[in-house]
């Protein structure tokens, strides 16, 4: 039995007196695209930062492919790729250099590395500007470059914070297709989003959090039941978050 790609156990994060996340339990199943939904300030970014070691939990544990990220950060961090909500990358490197930087950082095989770099840069439509400083890139271009490094690495688990924000319709279509294809190849994807249509289209499992608490988790049809028979994800989402707010 292979361990769950991402398992959060009683994950709690406090910023001073403020509890941003309280006792979150989520177990992601293999080969799924899991969507993390919730209103602004619900704690999505906080969850993702805790999952990837950018923040340290106040209590609780994060297991990446069965490895506790607090106990063995190096091994755990090898397993996933992160795409954060804001694409800050080294402005004084070129896109080309950044690809090789990542290749070295993650110790990728050198066989045919250059060809693979070229391939990914072409896929994400940044090959033409590969030797320009990243400083001159637009938001979307930087995001595409990060996605290119993710594809270059081809990790088992991909964690993304609002990946569609900042992409043009064409790129966003392409990225969604890539996610589906990756999922078919057995990769695990965990993403946060506000766009319910994206979630409906992509995600096989959905977790909804509100004010730092998990209020629903399951497949589409399971959520339908919880919400008392609402049909569209939008209605389900609104019903569930409102119910959580009322209680």
């Amino acid at each position, binding site marked *: 039995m292979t361990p769950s790609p991402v398992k959060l156990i009683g994950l709690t994060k406090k910023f*001073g007196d403020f509890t941003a996340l309280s006792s979150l339990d989520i177990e992601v199943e293999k080969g799924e695209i899991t969507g993390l939904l919730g209103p602004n300030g619900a704690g999505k970014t906080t969850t993702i*930062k805790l999952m*990837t*070691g*950018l*923040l*340290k939990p106040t209590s609780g544990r994060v297991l990446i492919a069965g490895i506790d990220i607090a106990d063995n*950060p*190096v*091994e755990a*961090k*090898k397993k*996933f790729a*992160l795409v*954060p909500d*804001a694409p*800050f*990358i*080294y402005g*004084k*490197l*070129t896109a*080309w*250099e950044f690809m*090789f*930087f990542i*290749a*070295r*950082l*993650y110790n990728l095989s050198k066989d045919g590395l250059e060809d693979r770099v070229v391939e990914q840069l072409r896929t994400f439509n940044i090959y033409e500007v590969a*030797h*320009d*400083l990243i*400083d*001159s890139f637009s938001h979307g271009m930087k995001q595409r470059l990060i996605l290119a490094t993710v594809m270059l690495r081809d990790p088992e688990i991909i964690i993304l914070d609002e990946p569609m924000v900042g992409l043009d319709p064409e790129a966003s279509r392409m990225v969604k297709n890539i996610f589906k294809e990756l999922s078919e190849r057995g990769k695990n994807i965990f993403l946060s989003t506000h766009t319910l249509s994206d979630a409906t289209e992509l995600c096989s499992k959905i977790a909804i959090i509100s004010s730092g608490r998990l209020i629903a988790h399951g497949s589409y049809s399971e959520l339908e039941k919880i919400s008392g028979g609402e049909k569209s994800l939008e209605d389900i989402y609104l019903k569930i978050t409102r119910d959580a707010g009322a209680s």
Partner: protein
Amino acid sequence: MRERLKSFFLYLAFWLTRLRQSFSIFKKNKGKFAVSISLAFLFMALAGGGIFQVIRYVKEVPIVGNSLVIRLTGIIFITILLLLTYSSVITAFSTLFFAEDNEFIFVSPFHPGGVILGKLIQTSFYASWMSLLVLFPFIVAMGYIYKFPIYSYGVFTLATIFFFLTVAAASMSGVTLLVRIFPARKMRDFLIVGLVIGGTLLYIFFRILNIEQVLRPGQQILAAGYLSLFALPKTPYLPSYWMTKLVASFFSPGAGWMMSFFMLFLFALVFSAVYYFIAIKYFYDGWEKVKSQERKRYLPKGSFPRNPVLAKDFRTFVRDTGQWTQALIILALIVIYIVNIYKMPLDVPYLHYLVAYLNIGMIGFVLSSVGLRFTFSSISLEGRCFWILLSSPLNLRKLFRLKFMENFVPMEILGLTLVLGSNYILKPPLALNIVSTLVVAFMGLTLSLMGASMGCIYPRFDAAAPTEIETSWGGVLYMLASFFYILFLLIAIAVWARADFLSIVRGYGPDKVFVFIPALVIIVLNVSVALISYKRGIRALEEIEFQV
């Protein structure tokens, strides 16, 4: 008018919230707060004590005592004026044109007038708080010696604010006008290079002119000659002139304080107004100009180096002109330093010995300010890009060692160049030569470990500009900590050096106690500070959180 005021206060409030964040560690940790505050006070007490001694000494010179104190005051204020101008110019670029919040400010319904004035306050603050650490003990020491009336401190406080505002407003006007003519990034680099070279030349010039008449030990009258040789620009067009007059009005007959106070107020008012009208007209254009980056291409050369982080840091450093202009400043510092020592009239052996000894302390201060600029800032300079390294399987222990080594090697080269160079000129006795070289080698190691470590304990990933990292509380703490570290070293060496010098005079070796105990103290001090820094630094980096 009301709109302007509202925006002004809103902008200040906005900035103050950011500022508060850097002090928020104290809410969690009261003990840290107490330690930091007492360190700062101890620093000012020591500086004040030093200044107190000097003023008392000069004051006792027969007949001309008081007028010498006035000259000394003048020297202090002109030095502060120069330093302030220098740091205001650099800070102005950051606050005006490289501020990350500009984007937000311009889309929000801020009145530009309010923002412009807010930036004036911001610049004055960042550029001047360091000089306060000297100015404050100076005023208190003067006040104590001459028994200034209580209300004079209120007068000084206001006058100092006017003084700072004037310098900031003048620098900001200059910068805004210059950016209109040149693109800001290039301009700033030219300006820094120009200032550095110009300053160095000017300094050498003055040194060569004056230094032959520098004081001989123990002869106050010659000290008087030295002070009077300083041909101060006695021009009423500089605010430092009026600051000097203001201070002088409290202990020497002549015009009362009100005239000087009024002049300083007038300076602040006029320069702020000039700045306001220039900025209203050109600030936005300038900012647009700065934002539009020229496209630069770098074609790959050979294979990407083995150590990716090292290669990344190196390329970032070389391609960011702002970074290596700082290195240039340091180079100029070395030139000034060596010339300084070369031109010293050291005709008494005792002086050679003394200068070679004090030299160790000077090198320590040079190293610690380099450490603040580069070593302390190295983790924070990863900034918002730090997620890349922190979410990667890079061993953080290795990252700490790398950041340390990157800064330690240049620091050690700098330190050894300085100590070997000045010892070559000074030709101290062999024992002191060896001791000073060893101690400086130690200092390079300990100061860079301390910097790397404290940089991890107090990271500022959200800093909009490097000055924000240096002026953060962690930065101040690093400066204070290295100050005390150097002080302890100097005391330990002094114990040995005194015995050693006496033994040279007497012709037989120093008592063993005066060799072993200082040596032990120096070794224990360095090893313990280095070890603690190393351990705490790694722990801090392993527990670091990427909160931006």
